Structure formats: structure tokens, C-alpha cells
């Protein structure tokens, strides 16, 4: 009985922690979709650029982790803007072309990273090493920091959108871009701003992902699948829905990792293309389940 309790406690704590990171991973992706109805398949690659930037700055330039983090966020912000101005702006009208173009960019980034770095899987150094005990569960301190930072970023984002003038301008544009243009809002500028924010959020998420999960040239896939599932499950652009969806996916993943019986149930060959990643599997399972039960997503409106 005690044993069961310990396992349950561990599952709860781990899923609460990892889900916050997933919510942050998906946040920029959700916003871009919510505001401009664009699915940015390079979102995971943005995270990867952030991860490699921090890693490179720390490993080769011998920067301290905080400066490396700042550089990663700055670079990803810039990447978001350049990506929108140089590419998305011109193809946005056609969803199919946008999907293909953003996916192609992700693959190009993957190839570039393979050329410049090895394909070895590594981990970014933690902000604070060591671990702490929460009741009977051992938790790596850095994950608590990632959890706190993720929630802080989400909270600041929410405050910005709902309180700041430009946040409201983004909301208005998301709700009706023609209405926005007709009150004199420069819709292009709003889109550029959202891409900058999305890039910055991806940079933050990328650094924590790198010190929690992994760094390698393929690391962009899981974050993209997570983001995609979260956007659909959460109800297409709803922030509240995204967070709930992130927690569903995180919980299922932790369940699959820690309970062999559940894992066996889902060990079909058809999931092998996802590698051994339970993140991918749980995202897709939640996605499929929600699409059956509530096709408009958890917090979606039926339009």
C-alpha cells in the first residue's frame, strides 16, 4: 500500500513538473496559430536553435549559463522576426504552402546542425545541479527551476496579452484582422510582434528542454508534436485550453513511463516511427481521443 502511494506521488509530481514545460513549449506555437491561423512546423526547430545556441555559447565560448540563455532567447526572437518577414509573410495566404515551407525550414535547420555539430545526444548543463526531496520523491533541482520559469513565462505572457495595450491589440487582431485594420492597427506589425514573442518563448523553452530532455539534431520533433497536439486538444488558440491539454499529455506520458502495464498496452509497432518517445505517443493518443469526444477541442468554440 505504501509502495503504491509512493508511485502515485511520484507520478503526480513528475507530471505536474513536465507538463509546465510542455505548456511553455506549445505557447508560442499556439499564439501564432491563434493570431494568424498559421501552423508553424518550424516551431520545434526554433526550440532547437535556442538549445544549440545556449549549449554552444556555454561549451565553446565558455559563457556562463545565464548569458548563454539570454543569447539563445535573443537569437530566437530575431529568428522569429526574420522567419516571418522573410518567409511566412509571403506564403501565409496558402495554408498548404505555409505547412510545406515551415517544415522544409525545420529540415534544413536539422541538416545544418548535423553539419556543424555531431548527431550525438547531449544535455545542457543545469542552472543549479543536485536534487531535492519532496516528501518521498527525489526531484532534480533544475526541473523545479524549469517548472517555475515555465509558469512565470506563461503568467507574464497572460498579463501582457490581457493588460498591456499591445497585448490587447494582438487579441483584437487575432479575433478579426479586418476589424483590426479598420480601426487603424497595422496588422503586419502585429504579426511581426507575435513572431518575435513566439521566438522568444521558443528560445526559453528550448534551453529548458535542452537541460531536461536532450540536445540532438532531431530534438525538434517531440516539441512540434506536443505543440501540435496541444493546439488541437486545447481548442485552437485558447491559452487556458493549451495548459489543460499540456497537463493531460504530460500526465499520460509520465503514466506510460512509470507503469509498465500501460506501456505494454500501447507498444504497437505502429508507434515505432516515433522512436522510443512516449511524449510523441501520449500526445497523439490524447489528440485522437479528444478529436473523437470533442472535435472542437477542450475550450474551443463551435463556429
Amino acid at each position, binding site marked *: 500500500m505504501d509502495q503504491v502511494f509512493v508511485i502515485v506521488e511520484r507520478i503526480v509530481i513528475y507530471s505536474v513538473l513536465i507538463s509546465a514545460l510542455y505548456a511553455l513549449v506549445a505557447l508560442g506555437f499556439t499564439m501564432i496559430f491563434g493570431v494568424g491561423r498559421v501552423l508553424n512546423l518550424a516551431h520545434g526547430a526554433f526550440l532547437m536553435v535556442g538549445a544549440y545556441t545556449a549549449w554552444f555559447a556555454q561549451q565553446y565560448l565558455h559563457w556562463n549559463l545565464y548569458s548563454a540563455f539570454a543569447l539563445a532567447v535573443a537569437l530566437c526572437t530575431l529568428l522569429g522576426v526574420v522567419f516571418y518577414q522573410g518567409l511566412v509573410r509571403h506564403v501565409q495566404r496558402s495554408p498548404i504552402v505555409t505547412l510545406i515551407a515551415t517544415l522544409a525550414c525545420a529540415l534544413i535547420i536539422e541538416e545544418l546542425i548535423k553539419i556543424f555539430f555531431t548527431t550525438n545526444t547531449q544535455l545542457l548543463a543545469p542552472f543549479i545541479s543536485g536534487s531535492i526531496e519532496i516528501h518521498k520523491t527525489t526531484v532534480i533541482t533544475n526541473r523545479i527551476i524549469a517548472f517555475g520559469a515555465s509558469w512565470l513565462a506563461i503568467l507574464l505572457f497572460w498579463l501582457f496579452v490581457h493588460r498591456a495595450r499591445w497585448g490587447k491589440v494582438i*487579441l*483584437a487582431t487575432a*479575433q478579426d484582422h479586418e476589424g483590426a485594420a479598420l*480601426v*487603424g492597427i497595422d496588422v503586419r506589425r502585429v504579426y511581426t510582434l507575435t513572431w518575435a514573442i513566439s521566438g522568444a518563448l521558443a528560445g526559453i523553452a528550448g534551453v529548458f528542454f535542452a537541460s531536461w530532455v536532450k540536445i540532438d539534431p532531431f530534438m525538434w520533433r517531440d516539441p512540434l508534436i506536443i505543440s501540435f497536439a496541444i493546439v488541437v486538444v486545447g481548442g485552437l488558440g485558447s491559452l487556458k485550453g493549451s495548459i489543460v491539454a499540456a497537463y493531460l499529455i504530460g500526465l499520460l506520458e509520465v503514466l506510460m513511463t512509470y507503469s509498465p502495464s500501460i506501456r505494454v498496452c500501447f507498444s504497437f509497432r505502429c508507434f515505432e516511427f516515433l522512436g522510443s518517445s512516449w511524449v510523441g505517443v501520449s500526445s497523439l493518443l490524447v489528440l485522437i481521443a479528444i478529436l473523437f469526444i470533442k472535435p472542437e477541442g477542450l475550450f474551443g468554440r463551435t463556429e
Partner: protein
Amino acid sequence: MLVIEDLNVYYAKAHVLKNVSLRVSQGEFVSIIGPNGAGKTTLLRTISGLKDGQGRLSFNGAPLPRDPVKVVQLGVIHCPEGRHLFPEMSVKDNLLMGAFRLKNFDPESELEKIYQLFPILRERERQMARTLSGGEQQMLAIGRALMGRPELLLLDEPTLGLAPIVRKTIAEALKQINDSGVTILLAEQNVPFALAHAHRVYLLETGVIVKAGTPEEFRADEHVQQVYLGGV
């Protein structure tokens, strides 16, 4: 104030506006009437820069910019067909968003003016725009346009789908707005409504202006009577 000369507008190969010329003077209330698909919406969208067109458009003597943001900056404000409100924002936030172009303004006194014109909006202040009735949404759309302090107000079918009583409220509001010095260009299918307070009227049919005149002349015209005022 607004002068349009030989305007031609196309959607792909479809020629939707053909050599349209019209003018609106300071303080005027001008209506454009015409059946479905005549090109009324296209004309207003071209004026406000949402649609490209070939021809000369000028406002207060200067060429009209071809960018909606710059057109709004001049005080030409378009209250579009379909309203285009921000559905998940409150009535108040929708109105405040209407004042986006203004640098210095006192939100409370500006809101007060709108609430005087449409008292129902005050009661609905905190309600989401999407939850308003059609008539309330239309009042909000007009209110939001007014919050931008228009010199020239472009209105596209404000009566679409509204009950006669609400139409009357809106007609009276438009009269008041015009009396307060705002120039109005109204595109409308409902001819009695369009003629009610207008100073001058244009009739647009399949992209061509076929008649211009005063409401009295329009009411007396046989073609207009038969096609637009007869029957229901």
C-alpha cells in the same frame, strides 16, 4: 472632400466597378443604393484601402493612400459589411479599440458620447460582443467607428437583417451623427432607409453609376419606384 474619378476595380478578371466617379462634400450625407452584387461593398473597400483599384481617389485635395492604416489616420473610417467586431472582447474594449488611431483622448468622455447615442451599449458595457443581438452589434460597430473620430464615415449596409424598429433607431442615430458634423457615405440596399436622411443619392447597378440625384428626385423616378420602392 472625397473625390473619385474613373475608378475601375477588378476581382481577377471580373470587372466589378466600371468608370465610377462620385464626390462627397464636407458635411454631406450621401447614399449609394443598388441591388445585390452591384459593387457597393467593393467601392467602400476600395476607398478604405482594403482593395486595390485603378482610378483617381482623393481626400481633402490629396491622393488617398492605398493602405487601410493610413486611410484611417486621415479620419476616413469604415464601418464594414458584416461588422467585423472583436467577438471575444467586451463592448467597452471594442469601443476603446475604435480609438486606436487617436494619440490623446479621454476614454471616459468619448465613451459617454457613444452611450448617449446608443444607451443600450452602456447597459451591455461588460458583455462580450459576440453575445449581443444583431441590432446591438450593429450599434456597437457604428460606435466603434465613431470612437475613431471620423471626418468621413463609410457605412456598409448597417440595416442588414435588422427589424424595422432597430432600423429606425439607427436611421435617427445617423442623422444625429451627420448633424454633429460627420460626413457620411452610406451603401445600402434598403432604399427607404437610404433615402430617409440623405442629401444626395447615387444608384449603382452592375458596377456602373446609372443615376445621381436628391432623395426627392429618386422617389419621383419611375425606374427607382418600380425596382426599389415598389412591392414589399
